[in-house]
Every structure is written in structure tokens, then in C-alpha cells.
């Protein structure tokens, strides 16, 4: 770097002090001082105006634009975050509501089921009671009937046997004796049955 600069210095010094006139005539218009002042003058004017307008008018606008964009983007990100949180909240609420309603529906269902089961039980109990009553009454009737049937059979048997005897012998037999015999037979039968 230093070497380069030193060499450059030498070259430029050489150029400045020795070549100026030779080169100008040799065709380097850059070294012709005729318009140097004019070039410096117009450079100062144009660059000065450019610098002033850029500094005072244009660059503040651009930096303003950049700043507002930055802040706007940050703001947008912030609001987006907020909205995200809000939507998350809403989702949670919604899920809670759904869960609640599910539990409620389950409860309703259970209640209804219990009610129905109760009803069914009640009805069944009533029905069973009725049935039991009927069955017991029928059983009573039956047992009564059965109890009575023994006497009736004996009676019928005595009557039929009296008639049979009448037909066979043509004579009337004392009905009470026949009844006694039939009773005895029936007792025997019963005993036999019991033995068996």
C-alpha cells in the first residue's frame, strides 16, 4: 500500500511538473488548463446544489419512509400477535363451550335414561303386583276348588254307585252306607298314593 502510494506520488508529480505541456500538445485534453476553472466552477455549483437538495429534501423523505415502514411493520406484527392471542382465546372458549355442552348433553341423556328406567321399573312393579294378586287369587280359587273337589267326587261316586247298584240289583241301598264305603275307598286310595 505504502509503496503503491509513493510510486503514485512520484508518477503524479512527474505528470504535474514535466508532462503537462508535452502531453497537452501530445493530445491529453485533461491536462489542458483552458477550461479547468470552468470545470471547477460548474462542479462546485452542480455538486453543491445536488448536495443541498439531497440533504434538505430527498434524504429525510427516504429515511422517513424507511422509518415509517419499519414501525408500521413492527406495529402490524404486534397487532398480528395480539389477534393471534385473541383467536387462541376464542378457540379455547369455543372448546370449553363444546366440552360443557357435551357434558350437559350427557347429563340430559343420563337423566332421561334414569327417568325412563324408573318409569319402566314402576310400571313393571305395578304389573308384577297385579299379576301376583291375580295369580294368588287364582291359586286360592284353585286350592278351594281342589279341596271341594274331593267331597264332590265322593258324592258323585256315591250317587253313581247307588244308581249302579240299583240297576244291577234292582234294589235300593242305603245311601249312607254307600257313602261310607266310598269314603273308605277314597281314603285307601289316598293312602296308597301317599305310600307310593
Amino acid at each position, binding site marked *: 500500500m505504502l509503496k503503491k502510494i509513493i510510486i503514485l*506520488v512520484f508518477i503524479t508529480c512527474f505528470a504535474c511538473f514535466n508532462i503537462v505541456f508535452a502531453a497537452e500538445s501530445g493530445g491529453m*485534453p485533461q491536462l489542458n488548463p483552458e477550461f479547468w476553472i470552468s470545470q471547477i466552477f*460548474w*462542479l462546485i455549483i452542480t455538486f453543491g446544489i445536488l448536495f443541498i437538495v439531497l*440533504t434538505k429534501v430527498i434524504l429525510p423523505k427516504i429515511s422517513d419512509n424507511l422509518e415509517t*415502514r419499519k414501525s408500521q411493520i413492527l406495529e402490524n406484527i404486534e397487532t398480528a400477535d395480539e389477534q393471534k392471542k385473541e383467536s387462541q382465546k376464542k378457540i379455547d372458549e369455543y372448546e370449553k363451550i363444546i366440552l360443557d355442552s357435551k357434558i350437559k348433553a350427557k347429563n340430559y341423556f343420563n337423566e332421561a335414561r334414569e327417568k325412563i328406567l324408573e318409569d319402566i321399573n314402576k310400571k313393571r312393579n305395578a304389573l308384577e303386583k297385579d299379576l301376583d294378586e291375580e295369580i294368588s287369587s287364582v291359586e286360592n280359587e284353585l286350592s278351594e276348588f281342589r279341596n271341594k273337589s274331593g267331597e264332590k267326587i265322593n258324592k258323585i261316586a256315591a250317587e253313581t254307585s247307588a244308581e249302579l247298584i240299583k240297576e244291577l240289583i234292582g234294589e235300593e241301598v242305603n245311601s249312607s252306607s254307600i257313602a261310607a264305603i266310598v269314603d273308605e275307598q277314597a281314603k285307601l286310595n289316598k293312602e296308597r298314593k301317599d305310600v307310593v
Partner: protein
Amino acid sequence: MASNPMYQFNVYRIGPEIKLGSVDISFTNASLFMVISSLAILIIFNLGAKKKTLIPDKLQLLSELSYTFVAKMINDTAGSKAKPYFSFIFSLFMFVLFCNMFGMIPYAFTVTSHIIVTFVLAAFIFIGVTIIGFMKHGLGYLKLFVPSGVPIVLLPLIVIIEIISYLSRPISLSVRLFANMMAGHTMMKVFGGFVISLGIVGGWLPLSFSVALTGLEILVAFLQAYVFAILTCIYLNDALNLHH
């Protein structure tokens, strides 16, 4: 005369001769291109700064990208202390860039291919940076010429070299830009001349060279503007943050 590759650098008067006392300050083709470049910068950036939309259009994007580009360049090389000088470096970069780029238009005049223009810019930067340095650090700014950690035996030599290198800054800065622009345009002119003289038979080779050179010269036009601006930043950095 027109086939002379240096002819394109000729400065000539446009319009009447204007004299300020005995000094000639006539409006020349160089002045014309300075005005055109400045106006182009002002128009483009004014249009780019006009609208305030969240999503920028092309011109706005262009101006904002250049703004952030220069701002980043300054921040990287000279730190946050150089912020007050942002608008100057921005104008400088844009002025040099637009002058270089307008020079790439055929038959246009390249303002920055004149040593006097680049030297005035560089001298202004040099003087400004020196004044800033002395204002910030007082006579302590002279420590710039005494690097730390140098053996005392070598110190006189080093100080002399540092002073020479500091004083040669405006020359190196101006000659770098001027020589690059002049050499590139001369080369293009020479190759263009070869195309004409070799004709339709042999002119294709220099023509292809000329096309390649145009691309290279556009790159150089940007690069030299960038180098000019970044060296200004580095000099400014020396003045603002005394490292030695």
C-alpha cells in the same frame, strides 16, 4: 480528428463565453454532463422518495436500496460517529456513479475522466477530513502519523512515510478514478477504431472485445464510484476514531 482516441475527452464551450472578471467560466460539455447527472439523481430520488407506500414500487425500492447500501457502507467502515456525514458521502457516491454511468452512453462526455474534477473532489475530501480530525482531537490528531508499537529507531522514517502517505491521499484518490475512467474509455475508443479499420472481414474480433469491454467498463464505473466513496469513509474513520 475524431479517430483520435483522446478526442472524446476534449472540453469545448457550449453557448456564449461567460467571463467572471478575467476568468473563463463558460458552460462546456463537461458542465452539461455534470448538470445532467445531478438532475438525473435528483429526479430519480425525488420520485423514489415521493410515495409513501408500505410495499415500494421500483423507483422507491431503488432509492431505498441505495440509501441502505450507502448507510451500511458508512456504518461498516466509519462507525456510527460518521452519521452526520451520510448525506455528503451519499451525494458524492451518487454523483461519481452517475457521471461514470452517463459516460458509458456513446458520444457522451465522462466528467470523471478529467483529473481536475476528481482532484477537486478529492482535495475537498482531504481538507474536510483534516479539519474534522483536528477539530475532534486537536493536536492529538498528529498521533495519526505515529503508529504504536514501532521501534524508536524506525520511528523517524515511519513518521515521514506516514506523512507522505497522508498527503498523497488526495492525489491517489483522484488519480485512481480519473485514470480508470480515462483508460477504459480510451481502450473502448481504440477497439472501436480497430473495428472500423479492419472492416467487415477482421472487425469481428475487436467488436467482441469492445462488447466485453463495455460490460467491464460498466462494472468499473460502479466499482470506482464505490471505491471513491469507501475510501472517503476510511479517511473519515481515521479522523473520527483515532486508532493509532
